[in-house]
């Protein structure tokens, strides 16, 4: 069973994404911040991390630098330009950029695609 870590400071988002993905057969763990994510990665080895781009604590750009060999998809309420999005996607393990608010079906489709590749 593929494992996904949902990293978001908003409890509603963590809970709803967890429920949605568990219904689709994924094992889901959650973290409340980038720092919590890094702490949990010492014992968890997810196949994909869905990470909010704007959270309290260590900036996301610093957190992703410390994560090796795990695919990361940004969940972003922050609006970026197309050029910035492309720049962010150039980072080695960043595989997708999902703009909030997202459509549930679209989220599932994109997660399925990432984990199939």
């Amino acid at each position, binding site marked *: 069973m593929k494992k996904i870590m949902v990293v978001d400071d908003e409890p509603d988002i963590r809970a709803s994404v967890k429920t949605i993905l568990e219904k689709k057969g994924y094992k889901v763990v959650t973290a409340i911040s980038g720092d919590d994510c890094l702490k949990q990665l010492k014992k968890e080895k997810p196949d994909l991390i869905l990470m909010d781009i*704007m*959270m309290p604590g260590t900036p996301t750009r610093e957190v992703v630098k410390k994560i090796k060999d795990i695919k990361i998809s940004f969940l972003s309420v*922050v609006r*970026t330009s197309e050029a910035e999005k492309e720049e962010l996607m150039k980072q080695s393990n960043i595989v997708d950029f999902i703009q909030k608010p997202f459509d549930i079906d679209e989220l599932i489709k994109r997660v399925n695609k990432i984990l199939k590749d």
Partner: protein
Amino acid sequence: MDVLEKLSENKTTLLIIPSEEYNSFIVGIAKQVSKNKVIYVTLNKTYESLKEIFNKKGVNTEKMFFIDAISKTIKKTPDQTPDCYFINSPGALTDLSLIISKLLDEPFDYLLFDSLTNLTIYEKKTPVAKFLAGLVNKIEESKIRALFYALNVGQQDELIKECEMFVDEVVDLSKTI
């Protein structure tokens, strides 16, 4: 809403914007004030994306100076460009306050603060309200008039209640449209 009229009536206004129409409102307001010198504080869009949106919608940004608290959280960014100052994060309230205070001495007409809602991701509502109170005091002593944005999402009610006592007027756009 005639923003310029509202700004002429008050030194500081808290504008509560319906979340579903937020983007069209911020573009409309920016368009109305764009003939004047404006400080635009962005806490939810990067400077680049804001300029992209404004240019696409025909908002003239030549007289705008931006304070961007987002870009540095997601990418390597210089401290300053000719029309933007980048701060580390929306939670860096001291830095934010310092740079705004510095700009209040410059010949700007308006300050658009977009938005108080985003500050609550990093800070509890009381520090946000205190930050606003301090900023409003500084604005009162300057020539600038300010418009603070907040979203009308349910969990923001308490923030709005905490903040409304510090500004001259609260305008709830969901009740005026």
